[in-house]
């Protein structure tokens, strides 16, 4: 089945050409770097159209089954297309929860009806998905989720609240972790997992203003919202296992994602360019040896992330502490981004004080914004502090804190 090298090279050339030709023009406003940052309608519709265009060209969901709307081709081809999107820095695929979390989950354990109902809409961005995992009082403690889904005949009645629901306003569906059994002896066994419609009575989506001043996240309130029992995926009481499987998809720890990149990280090369443009005592900042030293550190650090991935593919070179690189990549990557953005800000001299919206802000103030947004990765999905615990305990075998 797998294509030979010549075919792959030909495909790579084709993809490269397509994206070079079809990459969207500058929209005239600052684009977000991930689906979590989509704060305005103009950003959303621009990104939705772009995903649709990529899907129509055949470069998204390439390895998903043809009968549900996928391309029915090999994962290798999708990987080539995805990496080309990263390489060319085209905008990301905005239906991220659908493509990376819900879709793989439905294909993996959904019913035939569910596959028919959901997969195509995920790929063409017709149906936007959001996720309902975190709750306001249990930020880092997913197993303690308190949102109640009370069985009532062939329905469940939802009460409670979820937080950090990105795209909640635009979403048609949500993947939801909820508590169906308060009496379970083990808190994990009281949880169930649902695919629920968002546009029903009793669900209210309230925008949360981010530290950037922009929007993107929401808090979702549930007040006697009724859903059908057919929304359940997995067993009633088996929600924790489904949630863990979903997070494994999200992390890319197992295959099955639709492809397309979902995050546009900043790169040190952009900061080097900034250092050439910024002024210090009438000279380009890049001539300052202290700034050069810091730039070299950041260049090495960025390269470390890529080289760690490369080494993780070589078994004998990770045998000493298996899982170390995989488990630390989120910590290393997110903290690197925070530091990179912070340094980029400091390079701007007096102009670091501009913000998004000022016409004189360097590159539309993207560095100011991306520094602030970088905290979403050092806080969300397990804070950097919790990541340290996890690595210390699971990789080094240190006692629990």
């Amino acid at each position: 089945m797998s294509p030979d090298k010549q075919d792959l090279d030909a495909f790579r050339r084709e993809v490269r050409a397509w994206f070079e030709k079809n990459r969207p023009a500058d929209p005239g406003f600052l684009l977000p770097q991930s689906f979590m940052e989509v704060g305005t309608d103009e950003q959303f519709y621009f990104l939705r159209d772009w995903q649709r265009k990529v899907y129509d060209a055949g470069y998204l969901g390439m390895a998903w089954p043809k009968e549900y709307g996928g391309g029915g081709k090999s994962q290798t081809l999708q990987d080539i297309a995805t990496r080309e999107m990263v390489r060319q820095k085209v905008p990301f695929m905005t239906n991220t929860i659908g493509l990376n979390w819900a879709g793989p989950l439905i294909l993996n354990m959904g019913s035939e009806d569910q596959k028919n109902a959901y997969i195509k809409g995920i790929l063409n961005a017709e149906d936007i998905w959001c996720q309902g995992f975190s709750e306001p009082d249990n930020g880092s403690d997913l197993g303690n989720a308190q949102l109640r889904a009370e069985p009532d005949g062939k329905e469940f009645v939802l009460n409670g609240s979820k937080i950090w629901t990105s795209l909640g306003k635009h979403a048609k569906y949500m993947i939801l972790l909820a508590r169906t059994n308060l009496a379970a002896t083990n808190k994990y066994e009281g949880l169930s997992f649902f695919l629920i419609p968002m546009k029903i009575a009793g669900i209210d989506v309230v925008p949360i203003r981010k530290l950037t001043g922009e929007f993107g996240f929401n808090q979702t309130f549930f007040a006697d919202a009724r859903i059908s029992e057919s929304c359940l995926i997995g067993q009633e009481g088996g929600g924790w296992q489904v949630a863990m499987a979903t997070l494994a998809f999200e992390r890319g720890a197992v295959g099955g994602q639709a492809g397309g990149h979902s995050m546009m990280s900043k790169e040190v090369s952009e900061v080097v360019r900034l250092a050439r443009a910024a002024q210090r005592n009438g000279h380009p900042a890049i001539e300052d040896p202290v700034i050069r030293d810091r730039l070299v550190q950041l260049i090495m650090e960025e390269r470390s992330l890529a080289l760690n991935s490369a080494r993780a593919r070589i078994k004998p070179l990770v045998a000493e502490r298996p899982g170390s690189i995989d488990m630390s990549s989120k910590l290393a990557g997110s903290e690197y981004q925070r530091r990179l953005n912070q340094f980029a800000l400091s390079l701007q001299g007096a102009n670091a004080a501009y913000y998004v919206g000022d016409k004189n802000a360097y590159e539309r103030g993207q560095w100011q914004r991306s520094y602030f947004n970088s905290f979403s990765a050092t806080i969300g999905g397990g804070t950097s502090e919790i990541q340290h615990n996890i690595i210390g305990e699971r990789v080094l075998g240190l006692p629990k804190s």
Partner: protein
Amino acid sequence: MWDADQRPVIKFSDEQEQLLGVATNFARDKFPLDRARKRIAASEDLDRSVWEEMVSLGWLGIAIPEEFGGSGLGLAEVVTVVEPLGRHLAGTPLVSTTLVAQAILVAGTPAQKGVWLPKICQGAIAALALVEPHGDWNLKHLTVQARPEGDRLVLSGIKTFVTDALSAELVLVSVALANAQALVLLDKAALGAAVIEREVVIDETRRSYRIKFDGVSVATTNLLQPSLSAAALKQIDEAACLLLSAEMCGGASGVIDTVVDYLKTRKQFGRLIGSYQALKHPVVDALLMLDAARSHLYYAAGIFGDPIEGELAVRMAKALAGDALTFASDRAIQFHGGFGFTYDCDAQLYRRRAIWCEAQHGDAAHQRRKLADMMLDLQT
């Protein structure tokens, strides 16, 4: 200043003690943080009533001689007012007005002093127009030009980050005049011909403007004494370092309290999160940085104006206060977890203030570069 045993001495006057007490209470009463948030949304640049209170307390004249209506004290006493205001993220024109007054004191003509200093004591707001679009911290890197035409000067070019330009009755502009640096005073009338545009800046408690001077002209009598303009620029730079340090020390103290309050009340995994060393220890590090910065601040305040040691001290104070507020506010966002990522959490207000203050008159790295050149080339 060193004692007989060659240990450094911090001078601290009775007036400083008294002002620190008054200003601490004033700032706490008048500037709770929800007020800072309201100021952000307010349509007027200035909260006139609070400003009038500050004027009536005599704070605008602290460092102005009595002959011009001031108290005849010094910048050391201004520090004790600015620090508590910084703690509460007050965004008033006190610092910029004080800096303009300092420049006039150093280089103003008798006429300029006689006109402007009394007005400032009585509450006239003054703004500083020093920064240019290139963003260089070197104040001598000037592209705004003043061209003599008869007994007038015709200005051209753009200044940025002029705070409170619309409320100001006076703007002090640095210009290149016949290839030398010069300082010009512009009153409201002269400013009429300038194009003044609001800027979007990261510290939302500030009202900042970009001014395009093309076509603005003033009488040459508005020039500060040319032979003293370098000295005036130096005075502005050093006084700015001192007062920004005060503002940042106050800010660092405020944000440490903010995060400590959260760590004492928020639970995760059944424990108060402040019991985790991963959060507790960095906050202690922030406190140590603040303690050091604050000691440098009051030392610098006490010897302000000393030819060499004075400049060393203000630059050290700014470098350390900048690092302290930057670190404390960055960690405060992180340690508030999900709440820290929201606009409602006060940590971001302090983080924005840190970026603003670091962008003014040179960040910590810039100060260290200057200090290295001052300290390491002499054989000791």
